């Protein structure tokens, strides 16, 4: 437990640094440090599958963020109806806090899950699916609809990015597009 607390404090500090820094590149690197802490946390919690995925996605997102944000400024808006915005935020925060207070009271303590559904998966997973990796049997057999939804989300995201970002999509009227930078 002790090392978990160290990692949690490290991740919180990294997140605050990432938000507060003015330099965009340093901020992206701070986000990467938070992701590294999270992936080590997954290893300590004995979830190597999630740790591998977290690590590789973190690396890829870091590269994409660095390539996409370097030498570009983000618009920063501070003006506007601050009273309305603040009251809406406060309302939603108190609503979520109330819901979380109600919901968390019913949960078992940390490390003692109910495991009614998971118990079936753990006991019958190997016999029913033949996969020795329980995570694979859950995401691709018991919960395959979920994976299908994730794959659809990613597919839609790729189509959206390619449609918005490619040169043909951003050309002006009557402008010829070089097939090289499509």
């Amino acid at each position, binding site marked *: 437990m002790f090392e978990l607390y160290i990692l949690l404090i490290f991740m919180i500090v990294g997140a605050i640094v990432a938000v507060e820094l003015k330099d965009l590149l340093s901020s992206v690197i701070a986000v990467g440090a938070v992701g590294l802490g999270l992936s080590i946390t997954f290893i300590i919690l004995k979830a190597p599958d999630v740790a591998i995925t977290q690590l590789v996605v973190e690396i*890829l997102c870091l590269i994409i963020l660095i390539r996409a944000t370097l030498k570009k400024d983000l618009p920063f808006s501070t003006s506007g109806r601050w009273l309305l915005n603040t009251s809406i935020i406060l309302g939603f925060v108190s609503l979520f806090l109330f819901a979380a207070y109600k919901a968390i009271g019913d949960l078992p303590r940390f490390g003692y899950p109910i495991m009614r559904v998971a118990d079936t998966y753990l006991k019958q997973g190997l016999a029913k699916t033949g996969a020795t990796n329980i995570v694979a049997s859950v995401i691709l057999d018991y919960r395959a609809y979920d994976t299908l939804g994730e794959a659809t989300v990613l597919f839609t995201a790729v189509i959206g990015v390619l449609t918005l970002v490619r040169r043909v999509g951003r050309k002006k009227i009557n402008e010829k597009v070089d097939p090289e930078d499509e």
Partner: protein
Amino acid sequence: MSKEHEKGMSVIVKTITRLTVGIILLFGIYILSHGHVSPGGGFAGGVIIALSFIHLMLAYGKDAALKRMPKKAISFFEGFGAIMFLAIALLGFTGGYFFLNFLPKGEPFRLFSAGIIPLCNIAISLKVGAGLFAIFIALTLLKFDGGTEGK
């Protein structure tokens, strides 16, 4: 010196890349093919495969990476992965319901076990790898016209 060696980063980076890029690709294939036996799976394996091509692109420039994995191939793999995943799911109707594990289970701890799960892993890794590489290409090849955008 061929034309490929004129672009990209320094000689040190290129030499190291030439040694490591194949190993990264192989590691991705290992992670995805052992997804049902050991920690890993289609998503992580696909991202590692995409990373090997991105690694090549960062070191050698876009031409070297796009020569090995052209845009046509990327869009083919992206669509093929999605359709393969759906087709495996639909084939479950031969036995009764969507996503039925209709293949024989095999012996645990063997590579050829777990029915449709390895096939689903391969489909997902094709989809994820091609999709993430496509997003990376789209974001890096993006050119702004010096502030005249949106006017």
